[in-house]
């Protein structure tokens, strides 16, 4: 029982951050139809930026956010404006190709700067534990959970009740009509991509404490994110957060009840099963 609760806590805590990773991808897909295969490598970039800031200035990853969030947001904006924008809407495969290429550039760029050996970025809260009865949770996971859900709620409110949020939704629902009402569609797409990459900078810092990092890890995060987005129904907020929790839980249960390697396979197995029986994703509204 203790084991079960332990896995439940860990799965929920980590899963919330997976949900956050996927919200960024879902938003970008929603407004520009771009599936970003370098998503995980941008998470890597966020993590290694934190490592760099720790090595150079001894900054805690949570403090590094002051620098990494604006920096990655600007990088995201530039990447969309100069690389993706000219191709969006013409050739879906070219866009996929481009983001895959970007993934290799990022991965090898990181490899060049930081080397290939696994590294860690310490944080003051890294080894702090929270003990609730039989369940022991790590404080960084609790922080990740709280921040991820706060971000998700913040994004939801932004989409509902600000002009920028409404223009994001308008471009998603009908880009032509949005343009006719004076929405600058390219600008909204660029800002959304920048926002998505900025969110990754936050997610990177949340995942970082206690996690060894290495340059080739990007693909794993890309795949997890894609799975969560597909589970949630691409643009459905609640569905995506739910998908994140499911993947987090299956990873946690798999690692505890099965072997380490087999446990890492469980999320993919569950994904295939869900897609077999619910190809439209977890929630109804995506099929509307």
């Amino acid at each position, binding site marked *: 029982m203790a084991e079960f609760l332990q896995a439940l806590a860990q799965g929920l805590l980590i899963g919330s951050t997976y949900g956050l990773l996927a919200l960024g991808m879902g938003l970008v897909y929603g407004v520009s139809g771009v599936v970003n295969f370098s998503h995980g490598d941008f998470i890597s970039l966020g993590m290694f930026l934190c490592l760099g800031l720790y090595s150079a200035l001894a900054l805690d990853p949570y403090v590094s956010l002051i620098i990494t969030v604006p920096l990655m947001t600007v990088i995201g904006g530039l990447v969309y404006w100069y690389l993706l924008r000219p191709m969006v809407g013409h050739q879906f495969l070219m866009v996929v190709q481009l983001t895959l290429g970007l993934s290799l550039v990022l991965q090898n760029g990181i490899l060049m700067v930081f080397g290939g050996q696994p590294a860690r970025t310490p944080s003051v809260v890294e080894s702090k534990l929270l003990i609730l009865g039989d369940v022991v949770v790590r404080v960084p996971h609790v922080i990740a959970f709280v921040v991820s859900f706060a971000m998700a709620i913040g994004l939801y409110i932004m989409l509902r009740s600000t*002009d920028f949020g*409404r*223009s994001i*939704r308008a471009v998603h*629902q009908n880009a*032509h*009509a949005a343009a*006719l*009402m004076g929405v600058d569609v390219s600008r909204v797409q660029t800002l959304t991509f920048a926002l998505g990459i900025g969110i990754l900078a936050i997610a990177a810092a949340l995942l970082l404490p206690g996690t060894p990092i290495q340059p080739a890890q990007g693909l794993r995060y890309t795949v997890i994110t894609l799975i969560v987005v597909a589970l949630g129904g691409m643009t459905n907020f609640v569905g995506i957060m739910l998908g994140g929790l499911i993947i987090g839980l299956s990873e946690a249960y798999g690692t505890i009840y099965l072997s380490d390697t087999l446990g890492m396979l469980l999320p993919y197995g569950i994904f295939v099963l869900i897609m077999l029986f619910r190809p439209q994703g977890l929630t109804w509204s995506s099929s509307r």
Partner: protein
Amino acid sequence: MLEVDHLVTGYGGVPVLHDVSLTLSAGEIVGLLGANNAGKTTLINSLSGMYAPMSGRIRFEGQDVTAMTPKQRVEIGIIQVPEGRLVFPEMSVRENLLLGGINARARAHRPRQMDHVLELFPRLQERLGQNAGTLSGGEQQMLAIGRALMAEAKLLMLDEPSLGLSPLFVQYIFGIIDRLHAEGLSILLIEQNLNLTLRHAQRCYVLERGKVAVEGASDVVKDDPRTRRAYLGL
């Protein structure tokens, strides 16, 4: 107010509009008629800036707008109500209206404009919190016009407002168009419905295969044998 000079527009190098010239004075209601594929929607989208013309010029209130982006044209008051209404289905009626007034010129006056639109369309008031996708076709047309009014249109361009509506709603919508005209709005009315348009517009242009075939006062256009011919594609 609007002068279109020898406009040529097309897709992929193939012209759809050949040398179209058209004028519209302030406060005027002008009809643009034509069969399917005559180029009406291409023309209205060129006026909205969705396509760059291959040649020719568009002037609005004395200003050359040919090179302006769609956004800039909205900001000077050229607003389109698109064919098929194209409301944002998963946004509420209220959000659709707020989005209509998102351009820099209209944003500050949104509460006042919203009152005006809701007074014009009391039905929208009842549906304010409802998703636009759940409205009937006629209600969506009201919303699409309301959304365009929120943008503080100086020139309102309506693309087939009667399309797919019941006769009762068509009558209602044309009543609204007459009222907006009486309030001083300049209107470009694109329609397939010949008699309806001839009755409501002061002047008409008839497009045939991307060219202006007939133009003039509505009763003159009505009696011109070329009108029916262009219309029937004979």
